[in-house]
């Protein structure tokens, strides 16, 4: 087994080490080589709230079904909307924080952080179940400053050195 030092700390528990999420993904990294990366950009049509474009990138056409991809992005968007929702609970949190001179943030976890943990778990689960078997890996947007969803495309090392992304056969995938 490979051991990597922790890249996350108490407050940043939701940052998952990108190099070894689970053993199967480790194996993926070591048996396959990084071929290409696709970046899903932010969708600003509704303002500055965090939302990602659901447009299906062409590089993934041969890799994954459109519906699966769109489901993932839509679920992520919903999670972020929930984190940034302005309503009764967030106002209460805000007023309480103000009343305590914002010291409460030092001991309490904000709602946003709680949702981020849920997102990290969801992405890990998606990677394990859906993306890793297809030779793909999603990087949590928080690690890219919430700007992009980075999807890494891997190719089996055994396959011939074809151009990135165009190969539709991946030896390590189990269909």
């Amino acid at each position, binding site marked *: 087994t490979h051991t990597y030092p922790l890249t*996350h700390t108490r407050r940043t528990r939701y940052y998952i080490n990108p190099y070894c999420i689970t053993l199967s993904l480790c194996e993926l990294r070591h048996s396959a*080589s990084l071929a290409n990366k696709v970046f899903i950009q932010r969708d600003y049509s509704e303002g500055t709230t965090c939302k990602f474009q659901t447009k299906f990138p062409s590089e993934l056409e041969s890799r994954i079904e459109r519906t699966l991809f769109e489901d993932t992005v839509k679920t992520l968007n919903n999670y972020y909307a929930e984190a940034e929702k*302005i309503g009764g609970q967030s106002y209460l949190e805000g007023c309480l924080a103000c009343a305590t001179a914002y010291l409460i943030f030092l001991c309490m976890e904000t*709602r946003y952080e709680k949702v981020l943990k849920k997102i990290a778990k969801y992405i890990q689960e998606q990677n394990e179940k859906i993306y890793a078997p297809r030779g793909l890996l999603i990087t949590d947007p928080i690690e890219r400053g919430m700007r992009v969803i980075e999807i890494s495309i891997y190719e089996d090392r055994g396959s011939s050195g074809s151009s990135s992304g165009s190969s539709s056969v991946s030896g390590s995938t189990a269909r």
Partner: protein
Amino acid sequence: MKNCEYQQIDPQALSVTPLSAQNLGEKKAQSPRRKWEVFPGKNRFFCDGRLILSRQSGILPLTMGLIVVTCGLFFAFDCPFLVKHLTIFIPVIGGVLFVFVAISLLRTSFTDPGILPRATPDEAADIERQIDTSGSSTYRPPPRTKEILINQQVVKLKYCFTCKMFRPPRTSHCSLCDNCVERFDHHCPWVGNCVGKRNYRFFYSFIISLSFLTSFIFGCVITHITLLSQEGKSLVQAIEESPARYPLSLVICFFSIWSILGLSGFHTYLVASNLTTNEDIKGSWSSKRGAEESENPYTYNSIITNCCVTLCGPMPPSLIDRRGFLPPDEPIPAASASDIELPPFRAKNDANMCTQSTKDVLERVVHSSDFPVLCSPGTPKTTPQVLNVSSRAAPTSEPSPSVGCTQQQARQSAATACPPFSRSNKRDSLHSINPAFRLASPSPTLSHTTLILGDAPDTGFNPLH
């Protein structure tokens, strides 16, 4: 204090570990370092990355000193008298206000304002590929903007050459901190930090509580003097006995009260209309030049909602993972990185080797000020990119935005000693250079409006041809 000078991120090094180019050869055997130690912006970190401050923290000690001294004088001289004559609650209220002010100030100064981490090389290359128009390799297109629709309002997103990404809406690049900050309000030297999305509420509570505190102290001092004069002593004698006899303290008090009150009023207006100081100063959303009426697309058209959203909204997390550890050395990712083999990476990598020396040369040259370093004042944000000038004469296919003209510039200036551009042009470009080249910190001014340095060069961003 760690050296956090900006260095071009070496993609090969990044896939292994984001150490500086010098440490590439080192085999890492010591304990893993935290990410704040290699943070590229101009920030200082304390308590092992828990606290962040701008490197140009300017007059934060002065701010703290003024508050402490004023309150100290108040508690020492006015409170004993007023407690005797009025009520015990005077120092209690004063104490509570003082604590609130102090905490708000510290929170504002030491909180990450919403800094956006710079784009990874992969991301930057992807963006470059998307916007690079086919054909021209020597003629660079004008600085990039992207237009999007927000709530049926056209908003232009600018490309940040330092951070190598399209800035999200309401984000601005602070030249003093060399960071893109979300919902950038302004860089406040009194607080020693940028004011942005994450610490705006702390800043607002700081100035509001400070207004209350200064008004309260002022009121108490006036009461004190009035009571003294009523007790038989004349007004002049009363003033002589109180700390108000020092004319300087009275002058400071007077001016600070009015400026703080004015600032509070201004920011209350901004909060109520969901604007930032940056947008207000630049007049982004007011009808200008008889053009079509552009409305603020972010407002909720209700004062209460705007206030609640800005001040009581959810607290976003810090996007720069300050205390995370750097990923360890991995031989396998390095091998896979070389499989990518995208030409831009290689060109950038080669150029990176020259950045260190070129940067030193350029810094020396700028201070000797007989050598033009920038292509035009319109591209100040390309300062780090400028350092990509390869000293080799061969033109690279590197997708750097200004490399075309800077290369010619460098070649010409390398060949001849006379600047192809006029002196005034050069002076403008030097003036708008990112403080990477400035050694002396700028003198802090009292006016907040002049601190929008992050965007002042933006006005020159439009194509300069």
